[in-house]
């Protein structure tokens, strides 16, 4: 085989390997989804809850691990053990909420405000009807939509 062809093949192989290694490294180091700058499917808090409580299978297919922009009335603002802000949005069931854990601290949001929150849907939590606990629908890594 012509030595030039050999050199070209070796060069091409090395470049391909470097590209593959670079791509693998980049893919491996990739951070979580950029929720802040992404567009989410817009919907009302009450509708999201209704869908999960009436048809969990189709709602899982439609919303799980997807970015949603949910609009609703704030029923509670609190902080979790990691000092992240947790905002609850009202649903048709008074004991259940759209439970949103925010990525950034917020000010001036209070019970009764109507706001839109963008976050990743992680599903509907456990209910215990005997204890009167209704499962919330969770949004994680949330941001307030301005």
């Amino acid at each position, binding site marked *: 085989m012509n030595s030039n062809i050999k050199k070209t093949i070796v060069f091409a192989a090395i470049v391909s390997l470097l590209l593959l290694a670079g791509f693998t490294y980049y893919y491996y180091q990739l951070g979580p989804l950029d929720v802040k700058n992404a567009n989410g499917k817009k919907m009302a808090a009450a509708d999201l809850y209704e869908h999960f409580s009436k048809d969990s299978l189709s709602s899982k297919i439609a919303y799980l691990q997807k970015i949603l922009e949910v609009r609703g009335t704030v029923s509670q603002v609190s902080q979790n*053990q990691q000092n992240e802000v947790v905002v609850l949005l009202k649903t048709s069931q008074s004991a259940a909420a759209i439970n949103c854990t925010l990525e950034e601290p917020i000010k001036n949001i209070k019970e009764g405000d109507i706001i839109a929150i963008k976050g990743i849907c992680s599903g509907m939590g456990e209910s215990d009807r005997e204890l009167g606990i209704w499962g919330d629908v969770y949004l994680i890594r949330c941001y307030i939509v301005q």
Partner: protein
Amino acid sequence: MKNYFIISLLCMLSLTMQAQKIYSKNGSISFFSKTSMENISASSNQALCVLDQSAGNLQFSVLIKSFVFKKALMQEHFNENYMESNQFPKASYKGQITDISKVNFSKDGNYSVATTGELTMHGVTQKINSPGTIVIKAGKISANADFSVLLADYKITVPKLAENNISKSIDIKINVALDQKM
């Protein structure tokens, strides 16, 4: 008259019993895998936790998809390959604080307690005994516990290629502010 008295008494008793249960829908559960190659951690702040203050019964439930990783690929592998979260969407714990009587819920302090119960994840249930702490501070109650689980015990298999990156034993941390009353 006598019946009214009994009904009132029962209502009061029922209210008292209900008030003895406290819960949170935003409990924190984190886990850590440490190897010489890589440290991996993830956390969820969306765990449901219920504690019966009088009987010591303790319940946890967390959605597997609520765990957040620093790297997207790890989160994807965790859900799809290891925990198979579409098939097993939740992990749950049902147990008891066996020495709940030593906790004085009306007095500030850190109370070391013993727990025993069953942890179900990836479709497998195993018995777990772990020490924990109930913290009472200014009337607020929180619960903490640290324990380890073996992946093999829950039929979670790690492919050979990732064996050096993922520990066979995973450390789990639980930290819950039980701020809701029933």
